[in-house]
């Protein structure tokens, strides 16, 4: 009687919890997920109350122009950048931008992916074949080059950049959902429902999709992390959103890359901000994956 059996044995003894209740229970017990959730909420807080937290606007010129900005001081916690702007408020407003980018691009990728995935999964045959070939083509091209290509094509407005980053996530979500649907389609409860004459589309929307959602939710959280890094990377190679004075972490990092010697803080603060926000999403994503994984041994 290995420990796993003992554990499973006990869980059954407590009254059987639904998948979600059980997941939440497991999440609470997972320290990583908790830390992740704290990190995310910190950044959400920063994003929502940016104007309250910071005493200067991100674009407001407070110090002298030129030079390499000034190091952190009591008044300007993160110092000033070369345009004489308060770096602390730029990093804080950067959080608002990054979360916005993350949310929008993931929802773009998610929605298109869901549509493609469900069509492919549900109709199957040549529709599935065709869509999957398209997905293969998109996956064959390294995602960053795809993003660069799309940005060059669509232009470098903030919206276009978000769409480009979102588009690179589409194959991921499409495949995940298609896999989920195919697995569900063969499962007994679907066959049973269909034998009772339940119409296909209603079946698809009411039962099949909700049940194949858990891996998609995990992926959505992880994709938030990738989206934030990808936009910063685009800015780093000079293809990020191009509104003047935009407080985008990647851009802030790229601009001060050559002045590491004296402007180290100009690189460190945005860099660490990217790492922490991405870490938050990755941790919660991991926690979710473990919590939602039905067959998980202890």
């Amino acid at each position, binding site marked *: 009687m290995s420990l796993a059996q003992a554990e499973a044995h006990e869980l059954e003894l407590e009254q059987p919890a639904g998948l979600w209740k059980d997941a939440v229970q497991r999440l609470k017990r997972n320290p990583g997920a908790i830390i992740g959730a704290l990190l995310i909420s910190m950044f959400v807080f920063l994003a929502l109350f940016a104007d309250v937290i910071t005493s200067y606007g991100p674009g407001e010129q407070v110090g002298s122009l030129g030079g*390499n900005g000034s190091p952190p001081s009591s008044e300007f916690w993160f110092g000033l950048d070369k345009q004489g702007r308060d770096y602390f408020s730029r990093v804080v407003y950067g959080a608002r931008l990054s979360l916005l980018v993350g949310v929008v691009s993931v929802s773009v990728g998610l929605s298109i992916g869901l549509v493609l995935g469900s069509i492919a999964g549900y109709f199957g045959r040549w529709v599935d074949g065709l869509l999957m070939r398209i997905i293969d083509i998109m996956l064959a091209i390294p995602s960053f080059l795809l993003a660069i290509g799309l940005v060059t094509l669509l232009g470098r407005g903030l919206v276009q950049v978000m769409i480009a980053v979102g588009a690179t996530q589409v194959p991921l979500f499409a495949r995940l959902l298609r896999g989920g649907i195919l697995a569900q389609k063969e499962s007994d409860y679907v066959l049973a429902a269909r034998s009772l004459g339940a119409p296909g589309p209603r079946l698809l929307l009411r039962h099949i999709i909700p049940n194949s959602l858990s891996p998609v939710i995990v992926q959505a959280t992880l994709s938030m992390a990738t989206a934030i890094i990808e936009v910063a990377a685009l800015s780093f190679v000079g*293809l990020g959103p*191009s509104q*003047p004075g935009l407080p985008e972490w990647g851009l802030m990092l790229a601009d001060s890359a050559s*002045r*590491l010697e004296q402007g180290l803080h100009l690189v460190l603060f945005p860099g660490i901000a990217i790492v922490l926000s991405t870490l938050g999403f990755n941790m919660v994503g991991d926690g979710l994956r473990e919590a939602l994984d039905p067959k998980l041994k202890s």
Partner: protein
Amino acid sequence: MRRSVKLWALLMALMLIAAACGGSDDAGTGDGDNGDGAAEGATLVFGTSADPVVLDGALVSDGESLRAIDQMFEGLVTLEPGTTEVVPGLAEDWEISDDGLTYTFNLRDGVTFHDGTEFNADAVCFNFERWYNFEGTFQNPAASYYWQTVFGGFSDGKTPSLYKGCTATDDLTAVLEINNPSASILGALALTSFTMASPEALEQYDADSGKVDADGIFSPTGTYATEHPTGTGPFMFKEWVRGDRLTMVRNPDYWGEFEGNIDELIFRPIADPAARLQALQAGDIQGFDLVDPQDYETIEGDDSLQLLNRPAFNVGYVGFNQAVKPLDNLAVRQAIAHSINRQEVVDAFYAGQGVVATQFMPPEVVGYADDVTTYDYDPELAAQILEDAGVQTPVQIDFAYPTDVERPYMPDPQANFEAMVADLEESGLFEVEQKNATWSPDYLDNVDNGRYGLYLLGWTGDYGDPDNFVGTFFQTEQPAWGFNNQEIFDALDAAEQETDPTTREQMYQEANRLIMDFLPGLPYVHTEPGLAFTANVEGYTPSPVSLEPFSVVTVN
């Protein structure tokens, strides 16, 4: 996978030790074996922004190719180091006929090409004839840009050509004939595009051959320009690994003196400006060009580095496209000029290496007028001008700047743009619709087709002649400027034809005054582009047109 865990760790440790101990010897690998003191046979590694395109002067117009070719080739005439004054090169002296149509060059004796063949008048005429008879993709403006700018057409006569012919009257005398007089020919011949290549090598490595694919697309196939460039210059070609490095070595039997001590000159492309500076700091390279003004302070502050500046030979300006209302109204243009604090922009983003421009030419170029109308920063005056002209304020204007580009006259377009827009909007006289696009090709495409009202642009001169500045901008009607001012067009045409230097200078000064009154745009800066070197590099003489031989440089 027959390795126990311990073995994995051992392998990893070994790799790290090999890497680390390798680093124990002198960190700066650049200066190779010779240590201190003005030792003989130094090696200098120079960080360039990109690979040269090809090493054939007649077929390139990009800066990096010109820099490499300048080290290996020489023209009939050259420029006094650090200036734009024409001095003898491979030609000891020359006479120009009264009608300005014949140029007789007396060549230096005893000069040989790197492949040992003799440099003589036949070689000179061989080169000129070669350029004149270019066809196919060689006529493509991206290749033979300078021939077309200076001489116009080719032997196929599609467009008229200034070039009439070249005859070698004797071994050391070459006579060049042109169809109509042009004062800028001599200055132009100092250009890298008109440097002398060895006829023997040109033929042997079929510099002009190429293949034409099924659709008539001609692409050169010869190896002359990539593996066997052969000139008369102080350095000889050794090896070129694209993307990695271009290596040149000292020409043992160079005809002139070779003041420096560089035996091996290496150009290494580092595209990212930040990476270039870091490589210099770490000693992996000993110098690089196109220093970002933001880094001037860093370099000057570091005593192991030094900053050199080229005399200003460019102009940064805000273009006004008069095809876009209301920019056709002079009063509006004047008000804009008075509302932009050009001094603050130059002080902030040019780290003291820039000076506010008053006209579309730098001071060093002949024809510069000291007494042109100037437009000092005076928002009240601007308001007054608009009021007198009965112009409704705030005036709606659109203003554009290019992204991801760095030019000597505009190292950080976004910073300049933001400061200027702030000035315009603070004056309360203008409402600015901000636009931007990627420099190449979208931004330039939009400017050339007059899609922007106000736009940030500039120009770096090719050779020390006013025609190469104001001539290029305003001698003909262009969509970018959107105006048709015959008086200016005629003044510039006449000035270009004038051969007498003093009258020519007065004519260009008059033209500049005319231009600045008409105010087709607002010049705001001349910069002295920066180069950075390690402290142990001496003798490098920055030149306005970037014609800088490394043969005079010493590395201690």
